[in-house]
């Protein structure tokens, strides 16, 4: 596990916790709008695309029950937090673009207010380095 000795305030686990909560929240909001099966499909499409650049994302497990980061925790917890952050940030951006392309702002209006503060928080954690 990577731990910043000086600040001691952020770790890979912290970043993973933050994105785990964020993705769960996105899942809950959006699945209520378009259903689990379509959302699962959109998540998998996004993971496949962004996973090309950030292979650790391919360990995300998506099912109709939701999204699990356990595979990443087990295998990639030694990755630098900033890499984890960049990967998740790209994934979320891609998902939001997909939502916008599909529903012309209807999903984005529901999700943006939740997502942006969390991503900013992640940025803040990483920049404390």
């Amino acid at each position: 596990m990577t731990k910043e000795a000086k600040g001691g305030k952020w770790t890979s686990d912290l970043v993973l916790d933050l994105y785990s909560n964020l993705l769960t929240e996105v899942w809950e909001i959006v699945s209520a709008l378009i259903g689990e099966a379509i959302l699962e499909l959109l998540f998998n499409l996004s993971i496949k695309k962004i996973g090309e650049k950030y292979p650790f994302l391919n360990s995300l497990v998506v099912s109709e029950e939701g999204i699990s980061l356990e595979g990443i925790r087990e295998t990639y917890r030694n990755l630098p937090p900033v890499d984890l952050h960049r990967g998740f940030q790209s994934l979320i951006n891609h998902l939001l673009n997909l939502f916008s392309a599909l529903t012309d702002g209807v999903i984005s209006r529901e999700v943006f207010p939740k997502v942006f503060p969390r991503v900013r928080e992640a940025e803040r954690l990483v920049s404390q380095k």
Partner: protein
Amino acid sequence: MRLIFKNLNILRSIINTINTSFEIKEIVESAGNNLPNLFEFSAFGVLWKAESSLYLFQEESCPPSFTQDVAGNMVRVFSVLGEEPDDLSRITLQVEKRKLRPSHMAMDPKAKLRSYLVLPLAVEAEIMGSISLNSDQPNAFDAQDLQFFSVIGYQMAATLKHFQRFSTVKTMAIYDPLTTLYNRRYFEERMIVEAQKSFYGGSFLSLVMVDIDHFKKVNDTFGHTEGDKVLQEIATLLKASVRKKDTVARYGGEEFILILPEAGLEEAGMIAERIRRLVESTLFEVGQARLHLTVSLGISNFPGHHARSKEDLVKMADQALYDAKRGGRNRVCVFHSVQG
């Protein structure tokens, strides 16, 4: 609360109409007829990848520019989902117009697409297409619209998947897998229709039975795999030699049969002779060898040969084929009631 119940009832009714539809056009039409009870929209679209078709059910005053906007947007969004844009460039647009709003609210002739919802039609992670609701008004749809629309999308995807499966079964039931010609079963069914049309309508109907000469030798010398290739090549030549309205079927083994609706003896004779010459002039690559092959053909005709049933017509074509074989092969024979 009462409004939600009302909407749920409308939703149930839409799902029911989708469930009981037999083809995609019917789905689009029945869903389109009911959707105005749930949403205010200008066009409802269904893009179905398997058919490369985009069905639009839209307000009758929709200007062409709006239709183009909707079609372009659906294709664009579909490509965002990772689907090949090239496949979509050949899309066939099928537009159905209905009065969805009062005359005084007719669309502006320069109306543009201002807001939309698009959802993938997917079953078991396979994207089969997409559906869309479109409006010339900005922010026409909200979260509740999306919820209702997604339920419709799920039902539509399940029904389309069912159609796809049914279509595969249907294909297996009517085609010969080796030659991809129609099989004998389909021939029998088609003959019922064509014979009825001809016997009761008084139009011409010809049958041509085709048999590859000395085909057994090909199988015995080069093996069945090479023999199968010959059958496939002959099937291709047959398909290329007939008219659009004709039916070419594999009758069994190395025997084929052609149904030629509205063809008199002269026309049937021309088609048969064309096939004979084409096969004769083709060099077949069989294993390492190059072979010349020939076919024999027998023709029967209604009303020329006074057939009383479709079975009679088949027997007559078979008899004529027998005559062609007996006469030395590589020839076309027409049925004669008095054989000599």
